């Protein structure tokens, strides 16, 4: 990672907005499209895209997800670099055919005749009392689709740098933003910078247990690591940042060192990122493991509305710390 000297403190959401504006200023082929993107409804007061760039490049769409996602694919094929804000991640499902059969498959199916420089931004609102149809964290199902690059940054620095890389990439990139991170503050370089797609980040160095944490579970993993340090357990926290393709070597290096793996993932348990990483480590680093792998995920049920039911559904510092203690105790 380059080390820019001058930084400023930014909120996660503002880091995204700043990145979008910088990319629109840098390249006039970049434009923003989606439901209510001209409004500060979801972006807040700094989301002045239409004021800065005009209605031609900041396009409010009708509620027609299949049409505007597909239109972005067509525009990307023909010289533009669209960013589609799908807003809630659950709305991706309405455009699923366009994402899978068109965006993901066209380059391959047409023998590389065309490229699709497209970014789809999806925000994941959970822990928000908005129930099953609005609370999904659906990134794992997209990991099973060849032809998609998927990023899920957890800090203001990472969201800005990865989003800018996504816009400059010539392939389809899905950006999953975890809204539980939106108010998180962090240091971000003042000057232009990129975080490369496909590169994990070691968020905390440690020697006893590797915790790979996904998206919104990263701050919880870091909090757990802090608690466990007081108990004499040294935890290494890795954030893959990119989910497709996964930076497998960074994970294997860490497990080779610690011999223990916990994966924390806010997605549902079955076929989660945690499941995939667990399988990879079991296949490729079995000899390094000194205890069974433990996944900390959201259980295999829908997200309920009542706070009494939703509370405790997702990985948090307590459940991650408990998992780490359990693997240390089961050491062979």
């Amino acid at each position: 990672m380059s080390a820019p000297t001058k930084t400023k403190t930014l909120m996660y959401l503002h880091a995204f907005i700043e990145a979008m504006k910088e990319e629109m200023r840098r390249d006039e082929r970049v434009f923003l499209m989606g439901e209510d993107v001209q409004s500060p409804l979801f972006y807040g007061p700094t989301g002045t895209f239409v004021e800065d760039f005009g209605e031609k490049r900041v396009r409010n769409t009708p509620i027609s997800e299949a049409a505007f996602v597909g239109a972005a694919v067509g525009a990307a094929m023909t010289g533009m670099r669209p960013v589609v804000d799908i807003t809630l991640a659950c709305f991706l499902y309405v455009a699923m055919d366009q994402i899978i059969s068109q965006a993901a498959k066209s380059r391959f199916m047409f023998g590389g005749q065309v490229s699709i420089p497209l970014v789809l931004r999806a925000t994941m609102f959970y822990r928000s009392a908005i129930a099953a149809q609005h609370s999904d964290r659906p990134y794992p199902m997209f990991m099973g689709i060849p032809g998609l690059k998927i990023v899920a940054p957890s800090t203001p620095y990472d969201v800005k740098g990865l989003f800018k890389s996504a816009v400059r990439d010539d392939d389809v990139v899905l950006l999953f933003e975890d809204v539980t991170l939106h108010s998180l503050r962090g240091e971000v370089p003042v000057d232009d910078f990129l975080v490369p797609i496909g590169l994990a980040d070691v968020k905390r160095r440690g020697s006893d247990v590797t915790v790979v944490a996904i998206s919104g579970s990263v701050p919880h993993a870091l909090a757990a690591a802090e608690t466990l340090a007081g108990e004499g357990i040294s935890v290494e926290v890795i954030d893959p940042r990119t989910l497709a393709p996964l930076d497998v070597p960074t994970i294997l290096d860490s497990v080779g060192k610690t011999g223990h793996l916990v994966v924390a993932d806010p997605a549902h348990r079955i076929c989660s990122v945690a499941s995939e990483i667990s399988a990879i480590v079991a296949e490729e680093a079995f000899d390094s493991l000194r205890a069974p792998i433990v996944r900390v995920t959201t259980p295999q049920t829908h997200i309920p509305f009542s706070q009494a039911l939703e509370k405790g559904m997702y990985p948090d510092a307590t459940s991650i710390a408990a998992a780490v203690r359990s693997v240390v105790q089961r050491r062979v």
Partner: protein
Amino acid sequence: MLNGLDDALRLEMFRRMLRIRRFEEMVAELVGSGEMLGAAHLAIGQEAAIVGACVALRTDDYMVGTHRSHGHPLGKGADPKPLMAELLGRRSGINKGKGGSMHLADFKVGSLGETSIVGSGFPIAVGGALSAQMRGTDQVALAFFGEGANNEGTFHESMNLASIWKLPVVFYCENNGYAQTTSFKSSSAIGNVADRAAAYSMPGQVVDGQDVVACWAAVTTAVQRARAGEGPSLIEAKTYRYREHSEGRTAPYRSAEEIQAWQERDPIHLFRAGLITEGLASRTLDQIEADVEAEIEASVEFARSSPYPNPDEAFTDLFATPIAARKPR
């Protein structure tokens, strides 16, 4: 004579209609003999509807096709060789053997893809038109579709989007009467697909899909409107497919009399007769027929002499910029 419809253009229309007919007859033969694998959906009988639309477009105008789309790239001027090689699974195929019959797109002639999920091409065409509008070119995008697609949500969403943004799109239906075995009458609550235009504030027109000049004239008008920034149009060409939905699958759903009645208005025979009536020498047309026969034979030879792709080519073309593992293990 309609503006622009000179002898050269009419002979080119005739050549392209024949090229599609002979190409698809060859496909039927190769599928029948077992040399060609996979699904093959033929448009024999629909050549006037295809060519009339294609020749009203410029090479740099965009089009999206369907699962029944061998004719669309040929109609827009594609070389048959890489198309035939694709159908025979060769590396020299237009998609390097990765797309096949249902995805036979040639981007060099303006294709933005042929797609086998019914209705999924509409948004892509809208996107090509949006891009043209944003870049300030006067390109137009034409979406080919069968009448079976008129009940897909993407049809309605795309018509609305194109209309509110005044995008240069021509929605062009080849209504051949049947979606597989399901008739248009039994599946749509309207008499004509073109009637849907009113719901999206755009002109809708029905044309005789067996009359190549009528199709050309209708699309020419729609293209002029689109280039002038006046927005999209919907055109419905009434036509018919002689063969089954796909090669090798038969089921009873239409009468022999119905098929025969349409074959009596075969678009190529009608056009040829018209050309001769208007004074073009039958010798000229015979020569075109001979040229096209040779061209299709040559395309098969080209395909047969081309190598198959290597197995590792199943992993290329997924990404423009593939991301390798960070470092070797």
